């Protein structure tokens, strides 16, 4: 089944033409040939009549037929290579003049009757005109026959002409239909291009242009779908904001209570319990944060607009305000190598991306047993893209596991920390939403982990 409307249309037009054109040409040819033949027949008949006028019944009742050389020459000369024969037959069947074999077979004709028929003369097919003329009181017959050369050559010419006209006409028609179809489909092609060029978050209605009326309902349906998607995305974003608020406040209370209980005097027996409550509260809080971040990434990347020119260097500056104190508190060395790296995107999502990378690095770098050293880099790459990179000197990730760590809720075997297994999934989702990608590599000196996010430059 052909998918292309244009191809389908063309195939059917060609198939129909393949049937119609030969049939039409055949019947046209029949008509033309009959017309030609009847014209030749008239000429042949005229000769029979003319020769009939030369039969003379004298007063003595003797029949005479005289053909002068000039007329005979005129009769015999055809210019087409055809041979012309004639015979004049008396009332009793006797041959008065001409080619005797032509007198066979005998025929009975009424007075004045003229007949045209196919016959064979000297083994050759001929066309023959038979004319009954009055000779005295009786009836004589004049028969004129000619070979079929000119008829056949005319027929061949006619066939050739008709066939060429039909084929040429069919080709012209096909070309015309192709041009018309192509022109008619042009708005469809421009719609295709428009849709193909669209970025994922562009949910504005389609530009119509000169679109055929048959396509309008389809376009209306697409526009309506786009509006609904945009509306859904906005509703979802609001729901997520509300859910975040509803979740975070009680989680903060839970965490604060646990911390307060740990600070205030408490029986030694409950100390371990309080620690576990506190740790769980922290984990649930982070999990809620990350689930919301995932949902928010999905929702806002479908919502139209909202992107701006963002310098990743500025995003890293913001992150420094949040993360440097936390890193110092943990005794980690959080450093920066920042160059301008402009991208087009959503600033809060890019901040979320970097926050997750730094959080992961802080969380796991400690497991390396050394003082954690984390470096955040931004800058332009030679290929015109920009880079955001976070490197740590922690235990790293074995190459064979690097493909899996982007899966949601995947946690490295034997990893401690309070990780949820969502951080890198969030990083990947946000990078993809910005047309970028994430790669994992060893850190410098083959130790640790380097997470490199590359994005198209703005």
């Amino acid at each position, binding site marked *: 089944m052909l998918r292309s409307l244009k191809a389908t249309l063309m195939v059917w037009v060609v198939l129909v033409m393949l049937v119609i054109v030969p049939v039409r040409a055949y019947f046209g040819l029949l008509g033309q040939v009959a017309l030609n033949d009847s014209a030749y027949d008239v000429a042949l008949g005229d000769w029979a009549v003319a020769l009939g006028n030369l039969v003379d019944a004298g007063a003595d009742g003797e029949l005479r037929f005289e053909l002068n050389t000039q007329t005979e020459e005129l009769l015999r000369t055809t210019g087409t290579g055809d041979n012309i024969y004639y015979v004049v037959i008396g009332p009793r069947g006797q041959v008065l003049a001409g080619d005797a074999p032509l007198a066979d077979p005998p025929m009975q004709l009424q007075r004045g009757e003229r007949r045209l028929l196919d016959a064979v003369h000297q083994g050759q097919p001929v066309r023959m005109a038979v004319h009954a003329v009055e000779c005295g009181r009786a009836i004589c017959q004049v028969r004129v026959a000619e070979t079929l050369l000119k008829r056949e050559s005319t027929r061949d010419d006619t066939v050739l002409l008709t066939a060429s006209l039909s084929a040429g006409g069919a080709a012209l028609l096909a070309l015309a239909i192709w041009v018309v179809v192509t022109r008619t489909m042009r708005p469809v092609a421009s719609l295709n291009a428009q849709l193909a060029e669209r970025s994922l978050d562009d949910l504005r209605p389609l530009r119509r242009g000169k679109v055929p009326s048959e396509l309008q309902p389809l376009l209306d349906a697409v526009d309506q779908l786009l509006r609904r998607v945009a509306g859904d995305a906005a509703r979802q974003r609001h729901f997520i904001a509300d859910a975040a608020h509803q979740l*975070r*406040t009680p989680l903060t209370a839970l965490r604060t209570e646990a911390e307060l209980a740990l600070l205030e005097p408490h029986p030694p027996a409950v100390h371990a319990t309080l620690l576990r409550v506190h740790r769980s509260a922290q984990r649930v809080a982070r999990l809620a944060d990350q689930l919301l971040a995932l949902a*928010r990434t999905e929702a806002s990347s479908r919502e139209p607009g909202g992107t701006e020119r963002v310098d990743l260097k500025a995003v890293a500056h913001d992150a420094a305000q949040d993360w440097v*104190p936390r890193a110092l508190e943990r005794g980690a060395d959080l450093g*920066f190598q*920042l160059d301008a790296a402009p991208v087009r995107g959503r600033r809060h999502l890019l901040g979320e991306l970097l926050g997750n990378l730094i959080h992961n690095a802080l969380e796991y770098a400690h497991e390396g047993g050394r003082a954690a050293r984390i470096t955040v880099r931004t800058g332009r790459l030679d290929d015109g893209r920009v880079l955001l990179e976070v490197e740590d000197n922690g235990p790293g990730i074995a190459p064979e596991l690097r493909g899996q760590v982007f899966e949601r809720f995947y946690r490295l075997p034997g990893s401690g920390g309070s990780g949820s297994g969502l951080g890198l999934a969030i990083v990947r989702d946000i990078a993809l939403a910005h047309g970028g990608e994430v790669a994992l590599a060893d850190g410098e000196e083959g130790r640790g982990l380097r997470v490199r996010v590359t994005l198209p430059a703005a």
Partner: protein
Amino acid sequence: MHILLAEDDPALAESTARALRSQGWVVDHTPRGEPVPASVKADPYDLVILDIGLAGIDGFETLQRIRAQGSTLPVLMLTARDAIEDRVRGLEMGADDYLVKPFALAELIARVRVLTRRHQARQGSVLAMGSLRMDLEARRAWIGDQALELSAREWSVLEYLLGRVGHVVGKEQILQAISGWDDALSENAVEVYVSRLRPKIEPAGLRIRAVRGFGYLVEEAANAAPAG
């Protein structure tokens, strides 16, 4: 210190207030935003902690009303929503800092300290932190009773750092702030002044932490976590 806490979640308000009181601070609590502007006018609070998601008029509106009556009181916003969107809006409206729920108690207390210190440090023409005082008008500095000798450039760097306590300050920023009278300064020069300042302010209980590839952060040594 006297703190006004506007938070409508009873459990969180209770625990937060308890945590702040454990530091020896006085805390008043209100679950709504409407009375906050009047309270701020009537009583000499040192800080307002304002939840954005209050019932009735929200935190943004409350903040606007506080600022509309000309108050420069430090305001710490608590947000449970998308941090950066709220941060930008809050800071534009005149909040001094923000904290995203769920926060750690230690972080809340540290922010409160920084904000009130920054506010007090800006009172009049004196910057103060630890036992260091800088009189900006007289251009004289003391650690306790001891006069502190600073070169002009050291003075500029220290003034800039103390004016932004609690923030990581970029070397570029410092350079821009001090190079008004000498355009030939480099970031290396900033490093030199900082390294000269470090031993001078250490007796005041202050330390300048370097943030690699970025800049500096001033801390009170007693308040700072042990390195390593």
